[in-house]
Every structure is written in C-alpha cells, then in structure tokens.
C-alpha cells in the first residue's frame, strides 16, 4: 500500500488560485466552500522586501486530532493514509473543526456535515493526480508515494529537507513544504 502525500514548493507559487477552483469543481463544492486556501505573506522592507504565497490544504495527519475527537468515527484514515469523512455517519458536531490545528475542515451547512480535502482519492485510485496538482501552472505541488524512496516526492523532500507545517504540534502531516 502506498502512503500518499504532497510536497509544496512555495518559492514557485504565484497565488493564481487555479488550484482552489480546480478543487472546488473536482469536488462539486459550492462557491463559499474551499478545501484549498492560498495565504499571502509579505516580509521585510524595500529593498529587502519579499512575498510568499503559501497553499494550504488538509495535511492528512498520521496522528490526526480531528480523527481522535470525532465521536461518531465518521473521520477515518484509509490504508493509503488519506484522512476522510464519512458523509453518512457525520452528525455535524464540529468538534473536529475545532480540533484541527490547521483549520482545514469546512462545515457544509447544506448537507449538515463536515468536509475537507480528500486528496482526490477517486482520481488517484484510477492512477490520476489530484486536481490541484495537475492544474498548477508552475508545478508547485508534487504528489506521490512517501514510502517509495525513489518517487519524485520522496527525492524532493530529501533534497530540500522539506518540512511539514508546525511539526511541533506532533500531528505528523503528510504535506511537506519547501519555503526557501
């Protein structure tokens, strides 16, 4: 079984938001729902001024607080390591929304359940790549198997010592960032 993850190179992100909308279409999300958020950070003053666009999505944590607090077990992890929500058993208590340190869960008030990045499992299982990965004009994201040392993603993470966001929270995310 592969263990899927994504490596994100923020130094190549132009904040174009293509990934956001591609994701919304792929997952039939309403206008106000997003699995995929780009935050813009400015730093320094001219001439040392700089800017970074940081794409955010569910980190598919190996030690996932959202899953731990979910009373119904609606939040579960597939054997590929993808953290999903079972729409049939979620009651919409929003405990997971509070528990996710990355605030990567969204409440779908129409369906009354919580949703989040699904790592495009449907696509991935038929050998595709996630929508946010394939649409990106500058190839900011690399998708692949973290357990395969020869995979592009593994080599990228090793070469650039890519780190997850807030490793100190000890959630063991599977989304890795190269930020300089």
């Amino acid at each position, binding site marked *: 079984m592969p263990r899927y993850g994504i490596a994100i190179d923020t*130094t190549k992100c132009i*904040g*174009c*938001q*293509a990934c956001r*909308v591609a994701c*919304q279409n792929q997952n039939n999300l309403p*206008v106000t729902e997003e699995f995929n958020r780009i935050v813009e950070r400015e730093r320094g003053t001219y001439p040392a001024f700089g800017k970074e666009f940081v794409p955010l999505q569910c980190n598919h944590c190996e030690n996932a607080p959202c899953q731990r607090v979910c009373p119904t077990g609606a939040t579960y992890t597939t054997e590929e390591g993808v953290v999903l929500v079972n729409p049939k058993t979620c009651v919409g208590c929003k405990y997971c929304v509070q528990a996710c340190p990355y605030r990567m869960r969204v409440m779908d008030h129409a369906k009354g359940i919580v949703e989040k990045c699904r790592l495009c499992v449907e696509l991935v299982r038929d050998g595709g790549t996630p*929508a946010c990965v394939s649409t990106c004009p*500058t190839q900011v994201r690399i998708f692949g198997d973290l357990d395969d040392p020869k995979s592009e993603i593994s080599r990228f993470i090793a070469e650039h010592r890519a780190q997850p966001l807030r490793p100190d929270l000890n959630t063991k995310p599977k989304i890795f960032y190269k930020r300089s």
Partner: protein
Amino acid sequence: MQQRGITRRNFLIGSTAGTASLVAASYLNFGAWAAKDHTSGEVKVTPTLCDACGNWCAINVYTRGGRIWKAEGNPLAGNNRGRMCAKGHGFLHEPYNPDRIKSPLKRVGPNKFEPIPWEQAYKEIAEKIKDISAKHGPQSLFWLTHPQANIDLNRRFLTALGSPNLFSHGSTCFMPRNIGWWLTVGSSKPSMDFENARMIVLVGRNPAAGLDLGQLREMAKGRDRGAKIVVIDPRYSEAAAIAHQWIRIRPGTDLAFVLALANVLISEDLYQKEFVEKYTEGFDELSEEVKKYTPEWAETKTDVPKETIVTLARELAVAAPRVVLHRGYHGAMGTQYKNSLQLVRGVGCLCGLLGNFNQLGGMYFSPKPKLGKLDKSAHPSPPRVDGPMVDGSGDPDRYPLVPRGQGMTQAIPELAIKGVLRAGFVYHSNPLRTVPNPARVIEGYRKLELLVGFDYVLSETACLCHYILPESFYLERDDVLHTNQSVKTKQVSVRQPVIKPLYDTKPLVQILVELAKHLDIGDYFNFTLDDWNRALLAPLNVSLEQLKKDGVVDLGGEWKPGEPKFNTPSGKLELASSIMKEHGLPAVPAWEDPLVMPDPKDPHSFRMIHGKQAYHTHTRTCNQPYLMRITSINDSARVWIHPSRAKALGLKDGECMTISSPVGKGRARCRITEGIHPDCIFVPSPYGMYSKHFQYAKKNGGQGGFGYGISYNDFLPTYFDPVLGHIMSNEIVVRVEKTYT
C-alpha cells in the same frame, strides 16, 4: 437498527431534546435534501478551447449527466501545456448564469429589452444598415471585434458591406508592443525560449497575473534549471514572488533603464560582436545615441541605483546569448506610456546587442502552420476595400504605423459624436467598460443610429445596443480553428460544443450567414463553419474529424536554433529602424519623457498604474461567483499604496481613499504595502462593472458585479498617442485623499 437508534435517542437525550430535534428535523431536513448536488450520471469528455480569456487554452471538459462538471488542460497544447487557470475553471459555471441573454433582444427603452425572433432582428438590422449606408456611405459603418480566430469572418462581413473600419481592442492593449517588435525584428510577437535561458528579464510584464500558462510552465522549468529571473516593475508583482530579483522602477521610466543597459553593454564592450556585425543594422547610430544615457543619468530618471543597472548589464552579458527579454504585452511595453514604443524598440535593440535571436535560451519566431483559404470559385470573396480607416489608421498623413483592422477603439465614440460613424457592430467586446473616459464613450455610443451587439450577458455595452444577437457561449459553440497553440511546434486547434446551447443562441458564423442574406451579401457567405474550417485545414492534411477528436493536432516542425532571419526591410535586426526614419521618427531608441509626472512636492499627487489579477479577465469576470469569492476573501480589490505616502495622508491599512482626476472621481479602500513604488498607486484592473444587470455574484457568495471596486478607465482622459494613437493608460496623475465620513 433504526429502531434501536430511536429508543436510544430518547434514552440519552430525554424527551426535551427528542421533541426539539424532531420538530426541527421536520422542516430542516428539507433544506438538506434540497441542496443535494447531482453528482451522478454518465461522464463524457470533450476537447475544446477555453474562452474565459483571450489565450484560448486547449482544455478537456468533463460533463456528468449532461451538465458541465470540470476541466483539465490539454497536455499537448503549446500555449497551456496541460495547465488551466482559475478563470478557466470558474467560467465552467457561467453557462448556468441565470442572467444570460436567452434570445435576440431589441432595446425598447433605456435599459429595457424585449425578446424578438431572429428573423425580425435580421430584417430590422438589415433595413437600418442599408439605409444608413445609402445616406452616409459604407465608411460610416464600423465593426469592433475581439482579435481572435473569428476576426476573419468579421472582416469578410464588413468588407462585404464596403467599410474599412474594422477595430480591435489593440489601442487599449498591445499596440506599441506589436509595432515596436515588427519595426525591429519584422514580427510583432517573437517567442521566448524560457526553458533553456540562463536569465529571464520581465520589463513591465507579469505573466503570473496577466496569465500565459505556457510561458509560466516554461519559466518554472527554466527556473528549476537555474535560470535567474529578474522582474522590473514599480510593483512587487506575482511574477516577482517567484523571481530572484525585483527592481522597483519609477513608473514610466523603463526606457531610461533600458538605454542605460545598452550604454553599459557598449561602453564596457560586453555586447555580442559577431551577432551585431552579421545580423544587425545601425550599430554605430545606436552607440552614438546611447553614449549620453549613462547609469548615473538613468538613476536620476528611474530611481534605480546605478550599481544595479551596471551589475544587471554585466550579468546579461555573461548569460548571453541565453537571455530572454520578455516581449511584453499590456504593461510598460503595451499601451501605457507615451514612450512605450521607444521602450519596445529599446528592448529589441538589447536583444540585438545580446545576440539572443534564434539562439538556444533566447528569442525566436514560432513555426506556424500555413492555413488554406476558401476556394474563390465556389465561394467568391467580397471586393477589397482600400484606403485608410476613418480614424486615420493606415493613413500616410495621420497614423501610418497603425494597422488597418486594429485602429484606435477610443476613436469610435469621438467619431460618432462628430457624425462620421453612424452604425456599428460590437463583437465579444465591451468598450463601454474597457475604454478610457466612460462618460465620453457613453455619449459617443449613444449617438449611433444603430448599434448591434454580440454578447452573452447584458454588459455595459450591450445595455446601449439597439439589438443584441446572443452568440452561443464558448462551451456551446464551434469557432474558426486557429494556430495560437503553435509555440515550439506547429499546432492547430479548434473549439467545439461541450453541451447543446441552453437557450435560443447561435454561433457567430451562423448569425453572419443568416444576416448576410438580408443584406444582399449572401453570396459571400454561402458556406458553413465546417466548410470554412476544412478549407483552412486543407494544406495540412489533417481532417476536421481528427481535429475535433483531439482538440489539438501537433504538426511537428519544431523550432531549432540557428541562423536568425528577420522579416525587416534590411533583413536584419534593425537597431536603427528604416521605417521609423521614413516617417521622420527617431531611427534609434532615444529618451522621451513620459507625458505627465506626479508632483514630488504634493503628498496627494500619484501616478495611477494598474494590472491584471490571475483570477479575473479584464472586467468581465467580476460577476462570476467562484472568481469573485477569491477577491472577497482576499480583500484584493483594494488599491495599493506605499506606507510612507499613506502615512503622510493619515491612511491606515484598509481605510477608504478618495481618488480624483480631471475626468473622474472614485472611492477605494487602500492596501498599504512595501511592494510598490512611492510615486504611484496600483489599481487592480478587473473591477468597476457598472451594468445594473450584474447582480449574480451578489446573490451568490456575497460581493461583486455591479458597483464593486473602481476602474482605472474612470480616471483617464481620452488620449491618442502621437505615433500609434493608443490610450497611454498610465499617463495620468491623480489626487488621493483620505476619505472622511
């Protein structure tokens, strides 16, 4: 199971909760089911071309249960390389926009329309056209178009009516870029080999928001391979975010910067001698001219330290010939400054000095397939119409360098006011919002005796039309095939319907064919779109069927570095332009001051510059809920201003500013950022729609459409650049104050 559930529920919540939830359930449930999205049904994929902006990327669109679901870029296509942008994704929802025009409309009062049958529309339009043409001659007719594949149909139609007045949006977009390169290297759009470049320099071009997906893809590749990217921009653009160096230049002074680079390359003897000798014309004149443009001099003009200029020149020399100087588009090298033409010429000359043409990692001319034509014997073409356009384009004594078929779109209202133009067609264009000085534009368009529009929503322009002929939306129609996908190899591509038209709309070609009959020019339109496309394809031995199957067909013929050939009078890269000389214009690039400059002593005085955002197209997308949502959550319609200037005006981030110019006044909230030159404010260009019919986004996700944000056009007077007649969109000094109350 259910049984257990119920009993357990009562047990655990107690009757209060039980009844509460049941009561609530009884009605709330409904909402839950009502909001169900139909995510089932058969999936179908159709290759076609996006039209959410002018790039016409090749995309594969998925439908599910007959409704458009999602799309992906076509990996084969040279101009988007399998990528797709937010606009492209967002516009997949547009066919279902409830505010679409659903049938031909006739205006029956101010902003009042009534649906009419196609035949009636044709008849009434034809009568008026004939009448006006008889009274005032065919040159009183015009056609304004979106310069895309369909332009040939537009031209054919207008020519058949006997008028030369085919306009495009060129004078508001790219004119100096096209003419400048054409004068220098004999082609208006040289291509760039980003992938193999050692250095990539962007002068007033931001492909990361003024998107070009293919270019971005290749720039990213080049970057991965170690290319250094340098962005020259008064503003820290999105491209700057992935660049290695941002040079914060004073707006309107790039020409000085470029001339100084030439000065250093020559004075330090760093230019590519062999290339210059073999392939360029007028080196002595150039070196003579640029002597005075020292880095010290340039520093005073550009506000860029002379060291920066010298260093960049040396780096370029080391990287040469594997350097890309972006050919530009609408920014600095486009229709923004009085000196933009000189700037493009200057950049062209740098290419000559760096010897990068037709070199690996440099500039080149994309191979384009030679398309065929309709067989004249079976399909007679209308008699040619010679002579200049009424706005003086192509007139040796007025605007000799402005090509016919482009013209100056801002001249239309002026000529209408003068009574020179009396009737016209506006296809896939919205001059009332995209041309400067709306008050004047509205006045002019109002004067027309007949205005026929082709649009899919009631845009500002459509609202003034006497008749609106709704073209089927791009996801519902066929179009003329084209070769824009050809970048490194020859490619043809075609648009085709993904879904059947949802309403009573027709593809342009069908509308023209039918309307032509009523105008007695039917003989020139005795064909179908397929006939036309087959004729274009004939020389390529590609069948229309195959093209429709794949969307894009690659014909090989990949570009290879080698001897450069230039399609100029001298056959060389013209550092000194013979054509410029002919017209008594400076043969080699020479410094020219911008038309206006902000007053350095007045804290309220700013130059207003503008730019694209990656998730909007011109002003036509800010009523699209998915795209507008991006603006609202990022609060990105705000106007950029430098902290030092904001402080002087007592502005805090997000506070409201009142901006005024001789022609306009408006309010906008500010975004205070170090990422902009203190001399200017930056207005994101997608906003300021004023058609009352744009309400969709407001009802969906909250903001946008009518009355949202400001447009730079509201502050610009009607200008005609002395040489190219373009709008000089950044030659405007505005007064900025903090808004009280």
